């Protein structure tokens, strides 16, 4: 398919949709569970899962960064709001933060993966890139 560059945004929307659906079901039937908060490190994790899956689905096709930023902002703002996971006043913050983080993660993942994709450990490059970015985000969050 020639429009694989938009796959990333679709994957993110599906992933967030599934996660939010699970959250609604858990919140309804297992109210004692403490669900993860809408915060930076979780946005990074969700973004990394999407770019990781996209790496295998879209192969070498570079995503369209502008559309990824816009669609991810809409996804991060709208889907948790629709699920009642965040209040309406938090939706704008979630959308903007999610959009920025997703775009950053997409660029960083692509860059790290390309650098690591040499030698015998080439196949591990996507996994190592994702792991490195997630650990870096946790370290970054620890500063605040």
């Amino acid at each position, binding site marked *: 398919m020639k429009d694989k560059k*938009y796959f990333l945004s679709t994957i993110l929307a599906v992933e967030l949709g599934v996660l*939010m659906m699970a959250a609604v079901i858990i919140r309804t039937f297992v109210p004692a569970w403490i669900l993860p908060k809408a915060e930076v490190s979780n946005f990074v994790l969700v973004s990394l899962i999407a770019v990781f899956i996209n790496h295998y689905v879209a192969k070498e096709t570079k995503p369209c960064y502008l559309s990824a930023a816009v669609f991810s902002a809409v996804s991060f703002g709208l889907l948790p709001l629709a699920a009642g996971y965040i209040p309406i006043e938090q939706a704008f913050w979630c959308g903007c933060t999610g959009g920025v983080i997703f775009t950053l993660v997409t660029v960083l993942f692509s860059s790290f993966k390309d650098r690591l994709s040499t030698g015998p450990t080439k196949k591990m490059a996507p996994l190592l890139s994702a792991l490195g970015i997630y650990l870096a985000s946790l370290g970054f969050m620890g500063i605040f």
Partner: protein
Amino acid sequence: MKKGMLMPVCTIAISAAVLFALSFGLKATAQKNLEEKRLWLMKTLLPESESFSEEEYTGEDTNIQGVYKALNGYVIETEVYGYAGNIQMFIGVSNEGTVTGVVVNDMAETYGLGAKALRDHKFLAQFLNGQGDFVIGEGIDAITGATVTSKAVAKSINSAVAFVTGADVETEATSWGG
């Protein structure tokens, strides 16, 4: 709009519609289950209690978010900022000011460190049967690597006991640091 963009647009729109319908449809069930869970939790925190009535809190202690009265004591809902976010707790306190039960209901503390406050029974059990004035490092051991979270928990419990006993909330008993 490019044809390829239709796929993410449709996916987002359909996901949002499905989520909204699901959330709206399950709202009443979620509320009912939440109330049942809360009542079960409060009965566990304050043994031998039957029913609770919510009382309006008019005091100055900002840690206290809710007061539920039973015949033999109170369950106090508190919210204190920990290391990474607010820690919401329910604390059972008898009419004599003795802590009968403690549970962390919601938090966003660091996984593997502060989040241990949820299930670290050894840490939480230190507060049981106490009468407030808990100070981390003075008879109460902190969770390893999570001193700030531990202090926030102690602060919440001190506030709850102070409410029941009528102690001054501005004393050392409830000031930051447990």
